[in-house]
């Protein structure tokens, strides 16, 4: 069988060329994925076995989490408000305004809060991570760490990944809380929806598991976006231009990965927590 295949390809030069052309864009993509997987495994290994840099972790949690609270809260508030406004006017046509609370509640806790928060953190912290580590790579600071017998994955990557993975679910919580507040304000005071039915529907239709779904998503998004950002930063070459490129790539790859992973997570979570 193999001989036949070899024979076939050695005789058909055009076939070789066609396959070669097909493989050209695929090979680097697969290579990149492999390198990323290896990088993630290495990070996992060091997060278990390496010496722990508590100070760096706290500093990163401050930068990634605490300093992002304001902007996440603001975005959460306005997302909740606009959702209440839109669903409110739509539901009015069939007299179901009291469902605004529960609809916004479910949408926020399952989808909007984790996805929006993750996108905000990609843009705010992921870009900063890629730029900072990228600059360290091109100015030989990462080599300097290694020269001082310090593993750069353990020192630079592990605290950032752990910090993002811890902080993102918490920020999802902040987004949820402010989103609900926003929808409450718009529904009750602007759309004049009666408060009693609004809260009753909310209480009966929104389950704790809706929040769990969001938190689980936040946790996994945090892990993914910080790994991507650190990986892009770590593999930066070619000076300042390279740092810019890595930063852009970290944001683009991080956002796309969040949106794609979100779909598959939703499928999986709907199986675990059936309605």
């Amino acid at each position, binding site marked *: 069988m193999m001989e036949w295949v070899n024979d076939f390809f050695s005789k058909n030069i055009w076939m070789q060329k066609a396959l070669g052309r097909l493989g050209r864009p695929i090979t680097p993509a697969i290579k990149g994925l492999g390198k990323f997987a290896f990088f993630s495994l290495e990070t996992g290994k060091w997060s278990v076995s390496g010496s722990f840099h508590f100070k760096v972790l706290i500093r990163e949690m401050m930068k990634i989490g605490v300093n992002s609270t304001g902007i996440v809260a603001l975005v959460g508030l306005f997302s909740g408000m606009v959702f209440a406004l839109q669903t409110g006017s739509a539901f009015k046509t069939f007299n179901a305004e009291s469902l605004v609370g529960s609809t916004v509640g479910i949408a926020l806790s399952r989808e909007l809060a984790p996805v929006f928060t993750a996108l905000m953190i990609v843009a705010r912290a992921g870009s900063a991570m890629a730029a*900072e580590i990228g*600059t*360290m790579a091109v*100015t*030989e*600071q990462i*080599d*300097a760490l*290694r*020269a*001082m*017998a*310090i*593993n750069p994955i353990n020192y630079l990557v592990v605290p950032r990944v752990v910090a993002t993975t811890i902080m993102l679910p918490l920020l999802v919580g902040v987004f949820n809380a402010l989103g609900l507040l926003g929808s409450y304000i718009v529904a009750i005071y602007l759309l004049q929806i009666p408060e009693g039915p609004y809260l009753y529907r909310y209480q009966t239709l929104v389950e704790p598991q809706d929040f769990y779904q969001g938190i689980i998503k936040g946790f996994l998004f945090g892990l993914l976006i910080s790994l991507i950002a650190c990986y892009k930063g770590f593999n930066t070459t070619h000076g300042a231009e390279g740092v810019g490129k890595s930063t852009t790539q970290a944001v683009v790859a991080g956002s796309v990965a969040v949106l794609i992973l979100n779909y598959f997570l939703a499928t999986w979570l709907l199986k675990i927590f059936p309605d």
Partner: protein
Amino acid sequence: MQETAKQEVCIQIDEVHKSFGKQKVLDGISLEIPQGKITIIIGRSGEGKSVLLKTMMALISPDAGRITIDRQDLFSLASREQNDFRKKMGMLFQNAALFDSMNVEDNVAFPLREHTTLSEREILERVNAMLSSVGLKEVGPKMPSDLSGGMRKRVGLARALMLEPKIIFYDEPTTGLDPILTDSIDNLILDTQSRLKLTTVVVSHDIQSTLKMADKIAMLHQGKILEEGPPEKFTQSKNPFIQQFLQGKADKDFIG
């Protein structure tokens, strides 16, 4: 020459090859670095001198060949052992590679904080002693971006010496410095050498400094060692390329 033959070898490089993609950088390098002496590796820019230096520190692994340091084969060690092995070595990077998120004091204290259990008071004492031994005082609270190129190199050297290494590598220590600063860094290298009796390896293309300081010179050209020996061997060499390099002349049709 007989003296060098008797000298103990600290780093033994055997047939080291390294390519990046299709570009062959090191093409079978063999070299002995004598213990406790200053060896200077010279060559044109982009000839792979820094790559050779980083290979000796196991920051880059070669495609083929062997590097033995103190009779220990560097690339047969597991990565953690390699890591421990690096504590014996210090390196001053081309642009000092100071951590720009930390001030000078924290930069110099960094290796001690990571690798020792000394108290903070002891660490600061040592940091200050080290900083004044490289000619710096009262710069501790400054950030690296506030320092001049020469000062950054001094801080980089102080940091590299904190773990009391036996071998020190300098990657183009005087590139980009004015002649007076160049001389002061040269003196710093010589002073460090005579004070601590380290095995010193310098990568340079500064001919004046090289002839002044080196116990041994090795010339890297097109991925190979073109010539090695004491400075006199170079000044008396008949090799046209070496003469050209020593005099710093470009060919007529050379476009660099």
